[in-house]
């Protein structure tokens, strides 16, 4: 069994625009949020200036439970860039979010053996504060 490692904080860089900034502000507060169309209630991620269903620009920010399931994943075992050499293997999952139908996040699954990761695996968000910054990033771990 092989422990899943976490990519380095040096990979984190935020370049927010007016639409994504509220997400990261909430993240700094350890709240996982998602924009919901104020006109038709369609949720979307990443935050973007129009609802792809009705084109409304009005959104409401919804706090999510932070729970989700693995939709699919890969186990990265090779460092494609040098910064990743010391964190192999790491798991990158596409996570279906509870309370946000059709919305997914790409995130690491940590606190697990890589062999245990599977499609449908229940997860919960875990926040990682980026040293020396007000930024927090979301990762996920198995529930329980």
């Amino acid at each position, binding site marked *: 069994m092989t422990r899943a490692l976490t*990519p380095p904080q040096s*990979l*984190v*860089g*935020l*370049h*927010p*625009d007016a*639409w*994504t900034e509220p997400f*990261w502000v909430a993240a700094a507060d350890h709240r996982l949020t998602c924009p919901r169309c104020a006109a038709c209630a369609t949720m*979307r*991620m*990443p935050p973007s200036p129009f609802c*792809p269903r009705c084109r409304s620009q009005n959104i409401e920010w919804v706090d999510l439970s932070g729970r989700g399931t693995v*939709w*699919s*994943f*890969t*186990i*990265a*075992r*090779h460092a*494609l*860039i040098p*910064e*990743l050499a010391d*964190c192999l293997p*790491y798991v*990158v999952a*596409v996570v279906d979010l509870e309370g946000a139908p*059709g*919305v*997914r*996040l*790409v*995130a*690491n699954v940590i606190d697990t053996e890589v062999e245990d990761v599977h*499609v449908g695996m229940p997860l919960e968000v875990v926040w990682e504060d980026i040293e020396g910054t007000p930024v927090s*990033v979301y*990762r996920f771990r198995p529930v329980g």
Partner: protein
Amino acid sequence: MSDRTVRDRTAIVGVGRTPYWRRGQSAPRTRLELACQAILAAVDDAGLGVSDIDGFALYSGGGGFDPGMAAQVLGIPEIRFTAGLTGGGGGAAGAVGLAAAAITAGMADVVVSLMVLQQPSGGRFGSAFANKPGQYSAPPTPEKDFLGPSGLVGPGQMFAILMQRHMHQYGTTREHLAEVAISTRTNALGRPQALMRAPMTLDDYFAARMIADPFCLFDFCLECDGAVAVVTTTAERARDLRHPPAYVRASAHGGSGDWGTAITWMGMPEEIFASSGHRPVARDLWERAGLGPSDVDVALLYDHFTGLVLLQLEDYGFCPIGEAGPFVADGNIRHAGGSIPVNTHGGNLSEAYIIGFSHVMEAVEQLRGTATNQVPGAEVALVTGGPAPIPVSGLVLTK
């Protein structure tokens, strides 16, 4: 048939290339030099001259190729058309469709499409989505902020996630991926220009190191330097030139809106997540061609990663959705005895990776009857570009 069609009105009349090198090995030759060598070889192959060229139809940013600079350096008298598909490798097949559209519209007569690739050390397509500065890393964006922290930095990792989902939904296995790698390698064995000419066994495949599950080293394409160019002109003119024309029967590019940016988004609906994104393009391509998968003699499918060949076989209708694994396991894509030989030149996986443009060259050679691994009597060839974010593309060429 609508008169809004390019069907049979143009043909590829010339193909040319440089040698293929491993990434970084083409120095001290310059990118411009490689591109122009391929162009000269292609016009010469056609029996034309540089002075006949009046247009360029490109894709993937032309690989950094600038038609104005080429015109200046090669002494092309006049340029009348320059355009390219947006996106990356997904436009490989569609670039020829763009050339056909320009010629059919009367905007140019002799149009060159090409790809030139020179990957200096420090810049690699394999990490094209790293959230860090680099030759092949796009500038940071608000959208990439959502990928960067996870260490999802390369297309191979991204497509591995799509493939993992396909395995989950349909029971596809690594043995199925191995069949693509091995059959493609087998096609490369007798080709002097192929960079990978050692036979590959199933044991070799499973002994290779894992890069991003379920993809191992041999599921990944090569990283190369080189250039490939093709010349397209009117069907009338094509008939008087050196080689039998490879007629442009149809081309299509694009994708459904909810495919979007695909691998850098991962929000595609369940019905298409584990696909190549080609289904709408395949539908248009077959309709415009008046042909279907059973008419195709040889398929040159963009093979940046083995598994995406499987997904294209499904999306172009060579087998039902979800059944590409067993389909290839039955030997259907092999040159020897396969029902639909795939990547007879060795593909991106084993010949060379020129962002899929060697596939166009191989299609032309198959239709001329001059291919190394000739499919006897080949009359219809399919070429694809992508899987990728929108656009992906397809091209049907006929004898």
